[in-house]
């Protein structure tokens, strides 16, 4: 047991702690720093043990740093996902290269070693090419829509079979050439895997590729007989897998859809109405929106009454207020189906009168409201009443919620309200739709906000 090994163990510990930290908002940043520290320790330690090429390695490291830092620094927050994809890709490539090199260098060990090598090379290549395609999609260099090759399904299966055969041959023959071919097959497989994934699913694909890379690293750890690589790679592989599942759940998509996208003939139904797209979110999305808001406006309407969701609305508002978020209720003069409908309900739920705001109280400052929660209202927030003289409700004063920073719309369907007119707010890019009975949605939201 040398100090090098102990240093590696310490680094592995750092990585575990890093992942733990990253899982709780409060310690996330610290966790990342711990991870970086562990990484520095591991790298420096490994550097002290090398026999030759020290300077070249240093140059390569410096070059990598010089390339990585500015890229990470200057990327716009909206472009972070593709950056992560890219970093993941190069990591996968590095793992494949390491295994390839070790294999070329001459291999003493037995079957297990060969299996590990083959896995590393294959997974690494898949991860690399998949990540690159993902990057291109997100960067909108290529279309973000699912790309469905004519015989995509067959092709995918074909390449997968070829890869498997190649892998077996490598194991049997020990041939360098075949290994390189396997790497190429892996590249093709990665491309085929990611091409049919559509816009919203891309982050899930990235997460999955990330887990793959982790596995590749773990396998390369076997190749090199290095516990640090095994531990770190496995950690990433395992947590990445879970994370992928969690992400898919949060977005309400079955994981298999994405996993076997390549082998499916039908296009995923993600993107449908090209001109007027609505964005429907999950309870978790909205919970986060709310959890990190400073001010929230609840605009209740007839749907709140139908769902008898007044108690749930107040509970949510109280929870938010207990976190220092200011919550008001915007009471429209004609919300509901009788004068004062909302007053009756909210009084029943014991909402303090001070929190009830009218049009004139709300509209002037609505631009600084972070989130407007439209709970079963529709006509009273329809911008058509303000902007479209042809609309049958033109002239009715409304809450200008389209001027707020974000809007969450809770209703059961795309059906219009009492006046029977379509509401352009539903198609506003600021709007997140939360479909379902208002009481259900609010109850779920309550639970979700508690976890943010």
């Amino acid at each position, binding site marked *: 047991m040398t100090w090098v090994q102990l240093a590696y163990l310490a680094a592995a510990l750092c990585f575990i702690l890093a992942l733990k930290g990253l899982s709780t908002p409060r310690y996330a940043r610290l966790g990342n720093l711990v991870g970086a520290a562990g990484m520095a320790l591991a790298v420096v330690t490994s550097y002290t043990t090398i026999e030759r090429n020290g300077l070249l390695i240093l140059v390569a490291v410096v070059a990598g740093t010089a390339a990585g830092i500015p890229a990470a620094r200057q990327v716009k927050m909206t472009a972070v996902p593709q950056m992560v994809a890219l970093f993941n890709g190069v990591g996968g490539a590095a793992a494949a290269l390491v295994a390839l090199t070790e294999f070329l260098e001459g291999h003493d060990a037995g079957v297990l070693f060969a299996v590990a090598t083959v896995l590393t090379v294959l997974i690494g290549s898949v991860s690399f090419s998949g990540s690159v395609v993902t990057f291109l999609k997100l960067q909108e260099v290529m279309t973000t829509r699912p790309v469905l090759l004519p015989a995509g399904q067959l092709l995918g299966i074909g390449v997968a079979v070829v890869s498997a055969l190649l892998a077996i041959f490598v194991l049997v023959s020990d041939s360098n050439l075949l290994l390189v071919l396997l790497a190429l097959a892996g590249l093709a497989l990665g491309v085929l895997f990611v091409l049919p994934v559509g816009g919203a699913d891309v982050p899930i694909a990235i997460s999955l590729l990330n887990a793959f890379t982790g596995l590749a690293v773990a396998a390369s750890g076997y190749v090199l007989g290095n516990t640090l690589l095994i531990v770190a790679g496995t950690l990433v592989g395992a947590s990445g897998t879970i994370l992928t599942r969690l992400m898919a759940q949060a977005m309400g998509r079955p994981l298999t859809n994405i996993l076997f996208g390549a082998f499916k003939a039908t296009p995923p139904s993600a993107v449908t109405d090209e001109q007027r797209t609505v964005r429907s979110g999950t309870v978790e999305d909205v919970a986060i929106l709310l959890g990190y808001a400073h001010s929230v406006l609840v605009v209740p309407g007839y749907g709140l009454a139908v769902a008898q969701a007044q108690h749930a609305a107040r509970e949510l508002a109280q929870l938010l207020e207990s976190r220092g978020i200011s919550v008001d209720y915007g009471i429209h003069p004609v919300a509901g*189906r*009788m004068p004062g409908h909302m007053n009756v*309900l909210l009084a029943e739920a014991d909402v303090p009168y001070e929190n009830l705001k009218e049009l004139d109280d709300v509209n002037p400052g609505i631009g600084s409201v972070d989130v407007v929660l439209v709970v079963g209202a529709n*006509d009273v927030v329809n911008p058509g*009443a303000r902007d479209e003289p042809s609309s*049958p*409700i033109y002239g009715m004063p409304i809450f200008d919620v389209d001027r707020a920073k974000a809007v969450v719309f809770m209703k059961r369907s795309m059906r219009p309200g009492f*006046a029977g007119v379509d509401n352009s707010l539903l198609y506003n890019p600021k709007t997140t739709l939360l479909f379902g009975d208002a009481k259900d949605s609010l109850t779920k939201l309550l639970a979700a906000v508690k976890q943010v």
Partner: protein
Amino acid sequence: MRVGIPAESRPAERRVAGLPETVASLIGAGLAVDVQSGAGAHAHASDAAYRSAGAEIVPDHPAGRADVVISVQPLDLEQAGRLREGDITVSFLQPANELDLVRILAERKVTAFSLDLLPRVTRAQGADALSSQALVSGYRAVLVAAQHLPRFLPMFTTAAGTVPPAKVLVLGAGVAGLQAIATARRLGAVVEAYDVRKAAAEEVRSLGAKFLELNLETQDGVYAAEQSETFLERQRELIAERVAASDIVISTAAVPGRRAPVLVTTDMLKAMAPGSVVVDLAAESGGNVVGSAPGEDVWVGEVLVHGVKNLPSSMPVHASRLYAKNVANLLHLMTEDGRVEPDLTDEVLGGACLTHAGEVRHAPTRELL
């Protein structure tokens, strides 16, 4: 142009068509306002308050002096006779009951608006006095019923035994009916309601009350129309059963321009528990309850039937406030640069206009004349 606000002269009318705050808003729109002295007495708006809002206090009825006369009740024949050609009047005029008045208004080429005729469209809601006054009626109806009921509305579990909650049945779930439901529920009663409109079921439930299902075809549309015989049969059975089980019945069913439907018969009343109370909000338009008379308390056995007469007047401050705001909103719709010039092609104004330039524009009224 000059707007005139008279003191209401019809008996027991305690509301007023303008309050200092709406006077100020009319003056802000470039109009002059005359207020008859004492107009706001019941609504606790003093002449001084009107004056400081910018109105001129006049001793007499402003008809003939003002260009626009706004009132709650329609003018009487003498007052209408003083109006000049082109004068405008806005009031709560129910043409079927006031044919003589309509004739005079048409003759004198007065432009008469009735809030009773206002189309119930979204845009017109600010002027919808039917709704605003029905809100008052629905609320007051429950207070009246609670006042007359020799029992509690809420449930109480006490050392001297448990008092069960009163059962309230609301017939007709329009604006007044819904408000009655809400108020009775607030007071802790167990409420159920019935209406012929299809949408009413959801509206009733949206207030936490129970809706009585007839399990027969119901009607679409905003206003109720007349019904088939089997339907009426089934309706009577259901209502009879529920009336008998109720401590309070509040009936608000109405069909615009028609006599109110008769929903509660004497037999049904007799099946009620002694001491029960029935409040008939439709008494003035014929009554939903057999034997009810507006403004009177009738005992049918040990059941009290209270026929309502001008319930909004019993709460003059807020009833006036809502009404005055409705009228002001309507006037703002037809005022441009200090001139009241109604554009009768506008759906809302056209719909609410009863007579104009000597012509009776409201078709059913034209037929009656």
